[in-house]
C-alpha cells in the first residue's frame, strides 16, 4: 500500500522561484503581504508562457494547421487541470472566464434573469466581495425578486441562526457566498449553506477566489452548483479564471455573451448554441493566460495544496499572536482556527491609508481599503482596514518587518 507522507512546505526555497523577491523596495527587502489581492508569479509560469508564445502560438480552435492544434491542445489541457484541481465531474462543466467577477456575472445574468421573479429571493452574505453581492442585488431589482443578506456576528462569522427568518421572505432561489472572506479570512460553512439552499430548492453559488489557491476545494464534496476562482491569485497570470457549473443548469441556461465560438449554426433567422463549455466562451479567449493558469495549477499542486493550507495556518497564528501584543492594534475577524491566511486590522487613531504608506517605506506591502466589501465595513462600523495576507512564499521575517513597521507608524503618529 502506498503511503503518502505529507510534504512540509519550504517557503525560503520556493521564494527563489519568484523573481520579484530579488528586487528591493525603497532599498529594503520586499515583504509582500498582499497575496489576497493578487499573488506573485514563479519563473516556471513566466517561462512557460513565454515558450508558448515563442513556439506554439496561434488562435485556438478551428485551425487546421499544426501550430493551431498545438495552441488548442495547450489550452484544453489547462481545462483538464482546472477540472482535476476542483474535482469537477467533467471538463464540459469548466468554463474559462476572465476572472471571478465575470464568472459570477455570468451566473447572475444567464441564470438569474430567467429564473428570478416576484416572490423569489436572492440571498448573499454580509461578508461578500462586491463581485458576489452587487450582481445579485441588481438582478433582483431587475426581476422584482427580493434580496436578503445573511448577517455576521462580532467575530465576523455567518449567523446561520438567521436563516429561518430569511426563508420567510419568499421562495429562496439562489444563495451566493464566498468560501473564504477576502477581508476577514473567515472560512464559511459552505457545505451547511449548500444543504440549506438545496432544502429551499435554491442553487448555491460559491465565490472561491480566496479558497482555491490556498486549500483543497472539491465541488462534488461541497455539492455547490456554481463555483468561481481566478488564476492571478494562484500564481498564474491575470486575465484568466474558471467557473464550474453543474451541467443540468448550464444546459438549460441561455448564453451570457454572444459572438464567435459559442455558436453552432447561424442564419439570418436563427442561431443555435455550441456544446458546453463553449456555449459560454464567446470570442477569442485569453488562451495563453488560461494555459499559464494550468502551469500555475501544476506548480501549487507540486508544492501541495494541503501543505500550503497548513503553512498559511501557521503564519496566520503567528501574526495574530504578534498583533495581540500591540494594544493599539484592533484585529477583525475570527480566531486563527477558523481563519485563512488573511488578517484585517487597524491602528488606533491612524487611517489605514497612512498605515500602508508608512509600511511601504519599510518595503512592506499591505492593502488599505474597504477591500470591495463596503456592507461589511459598515457592519464593523469602519470605512477601511489595513490587510495582511499570505501565500506559499510568505516567510516569518515578513511578519517581523510588518510588526517593526507598525511600531514606526505608532511613532510617527505619537
Amino acid at each position, binding site marked *: 500500500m502506498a503511503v503518502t507522507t505529507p510534504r512540509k512546505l519550504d517557503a525560503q526555497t520556493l521564494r527563489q522561484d519568484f523573481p520579484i523577491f530579488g528586487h528591493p523596495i525603497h532599498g529594503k527587502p520586499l515583504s509582500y503581504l498582499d497575496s489576497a489581492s493578487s499573488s506573485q508569479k514563479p519563473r516556471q509560469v513566466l517561462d512557460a508562457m513565454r515558450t508558448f508564445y515563442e513556439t506554439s502560438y496561434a488562435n485556438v480552435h478551428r485551425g487546421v494547421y499544426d501550430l493551431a492544434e498545438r495552441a488548442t491542445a495547450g489550452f484544453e489541457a489547462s481545462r483538464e487541470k482546472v477540472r482535476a484541481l476542483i474535482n469537477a465531474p467533467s471538463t464540459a462543466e469548466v468554463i474559462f472566464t476572465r476572472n471571478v467577477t465575470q464568472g459570477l456575472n455570468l451566473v447572475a445574468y444567464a441564470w438569474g434573469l430567467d429564473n428570478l421573479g416576484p416572490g423569489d429571493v436572492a440571498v448573499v452574505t454580509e461578508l461578500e466581495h462586491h463581485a458576489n453581492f452587487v450582481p445579485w442585488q441588481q438582478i433582483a431589482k431587475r426581476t422584482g425578486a427580493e434580496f436578503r443578506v445573511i448577517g455576521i456576528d462580532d467575530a465576523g462569522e455567518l449567523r446561520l441562526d438567521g436563516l429561518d427568518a430569511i426563508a420567510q421572505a419568499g421562495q429562496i432561489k439562489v444563495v451566493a457566498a464566498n468560501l473564504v472572506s477576502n477581508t476577514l479570512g473567515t472560512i464559511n460553512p459552505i457545505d451547511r449553506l449548500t444543504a440549506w439552499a438545496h432544502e429551499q430548492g435554491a442553487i448555491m453559488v460559491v465565490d472561491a477566489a480566496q479558497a482555491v489557491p490556498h486549500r483543497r476545494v472539491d465541488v462534488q464534496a461541497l455539492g455547490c452548483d456554481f463555483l468561481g476562482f481566478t488564476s492571478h491569485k494562484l500564481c498564474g497570470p491575470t486575465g484568466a479564471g474558471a467557473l464550474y457549473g453543474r451541467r443540468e443548469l448550464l444546459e438549460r441556461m441561455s448564453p451570457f455573451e454572444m459572438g464567435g465560438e459559442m455558436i453552432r449554426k447561424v442564419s439570418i433567422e436563427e442561431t443555435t448554441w455550441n456544446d458546453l463549455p463553449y456555449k459560454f466562451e464567446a470570442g477569442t479567449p485569453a488562451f495563453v493566460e488560461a494555459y499559464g493558469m494550468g502551469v500555475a495549477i501544476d506548480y501549487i499542486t507540486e508544492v501541495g495544496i494541503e501543505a500550503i493550507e497548513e503553512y498559511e495556518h501557521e503564519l496566520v497564528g503567528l501574526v495574530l499572536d504578534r498583533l495581540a501584543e500591540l494594544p493599539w492594534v484592533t484585529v477583525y475577524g475570527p480566531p486563527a482556527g477558523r481563519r485563512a491566511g488573511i488578517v484585517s486590522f487597524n491602528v488606533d487613531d491612524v*487611517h489605514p*491609508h*497612512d498605515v500602508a504608506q508608512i509600511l511601504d517605506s519599510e518595503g512592506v506591502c499591505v492593502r488599505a481599503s*474597504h477591500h470591495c466589501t463596503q456592507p461589511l465595513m459598515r457592519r464593523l462600523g469602519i*470605512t477601511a482596514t489595513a490587510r495582511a495576507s499570505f501565500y506559499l512564499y510568505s516567510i516569518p521575517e515578513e511578519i517581523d518587518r510588518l510588526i517593526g513597521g507598525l511600531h514606526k507608524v505608532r511613532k510617527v503618529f505619537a
Partner: protein
Amino acid sequence: MDDQLYREIILDHYKNPRGHGVIEDADAEADGMNPLCGDEVSIYVAFAEDGETIEDVKFSGRGCAISQAATSMLMELAVGKTADEVARMPRDELLEEIGVPLQNNPTRLKCALLGLTTLKVALHKAKGTPLPDGLAGFDELELK
C-alpha cells in the same frame, strides 16, 4: 519618503484640525467621497454680507492624515477669499501650502485634493455656476 510626507505640520493639522465642525444653515455645502479609500468630507460655507466673501468655512468627515490635514489647511486658506477666487484656485496653490511631495503618488494626491474639490463643488452649487470639466482633474472623486 514618508518621513517627508508625514511632516510635523501635516501631523499637527491632522491631530488639531482647523475649521472642523458644521455650519448650520450654511450658504453653500457639498459632500465628497474618495471611493478608493472611503474617505468622506462635508464642507460648509457661510458668506459675509456681500454674499461673495467667505466669512466662515468648516468641514466634517473622516479620512487619512493627508486628506484631513490638507482640508484643515484649506479652511485657513479659504477664509476671507471670495467664492470666485476659491472656485478658481489652482490645485498647486493648496499643494504648495501642504508642502509635501505628492507628485509621484496619484493615489495620495486624490486624498490631498478631496477637500478642495468638494469646496469648489459647494461654491459652484451655491452660485449656480456650472462645474468645470474634470474639476481639479479628478473625475473619480464622488461628489454630491
